[in-house]
């Protein structure tokens, strides 16, 4: 990180930033792979809904693993 950038500009990466990239972008393959493209698409949509529902807890200052919301 260059030192002239104000430190408050750098933020913790949210799980949503991660999900939006890892599940929705990148090289997408069909063919010999074990899982269909449509399956991962479905997971992506589901995860976004799940993240919205746990966001309330995070706003209250509690870092929540998405899994915790289901326990």
């Amino acid at each position: 990180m260059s030192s002239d950038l104000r430190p408050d500009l750098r933020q913790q990466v949210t799980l949503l930033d991660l999900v939006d990239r890892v599940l929705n972008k990148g090289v997408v393959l069909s063919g010999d792979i074990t899982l269909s493209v449509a399956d991962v698409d479905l997971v992506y949509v589901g995860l976004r809904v799940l993240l919205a529902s746990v966001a309330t807890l995070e706003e209250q200052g509690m870092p929540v693993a998405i899994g915790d919301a289901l326990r």
Partner: protein
Amino acid sequence: MSADGWYLYGVVEAPPGPLDVEPDVELVTEGPLAGVTSRVSLDEFGDSALSERLGDAVWLEENIRRHEQVLERVLASTTVLPCRFCTVYRTEADVRRFLSERQDQLTAALAEVSGRVELGVKAFVDPERFAAGGAQENEQIRELTAQTAQAEGGRAYLESRRLERLVGDERARFGQEAASQLHSRLLDAAERGVLLDLQRPELSGRDEEMVLNGAYLVSDRPGFERELAALAAELSSRGLELELTGPWPPYNFVSEELRG
């Protein structure tokens, strides 16, 4: 009893030089390209098992984070073309066949992002800071603010409602203007850039309204970050807040032919 499959995280140029990666991460080299892989149990990552796992949020979060961590450690040493989550082949030969069949596209896509990283920039408008800052540049708002401060009773209420509406409209206008100014100046400091979907407050984890969610492919990081700092300095007194994420593997800059 269980057979192994090959989880493919991404593709690098071969040979990539020394990589500081987790011990179970292996390179599968085929000609000028190498797949960044690890062996996974097909009990866990085979098609039927996997559909079940994909409903398990704990498993998902763990593996999404792992996918990104593996790629970030590779990214620290070399350019990597990221694959989507859960790209799993049954055999090493399948991985090699993919690398050789798509060699031209992969090589071209790698060349496009070589020596560059993806940086994410998000911008938000803070309503209170905007009301005290940017909104006061509007003469009508300044006047109404002064009037409202002097008014009493029912009139004070009506005028403060009118002021709120006016500030709200002005904030929306400022947000759009700031977003387009930010994007155009950040594009000048980057090789390429794309606008991603804005995240609603319940998803962004912030109360402020998001006005920009951009991803930029950057070769001169210090230059890009200087420009971002300059923009922050120019716009923060008016209520704009900026967030920087990355460097990311270039997820948003994988060429269309490789996007399924």
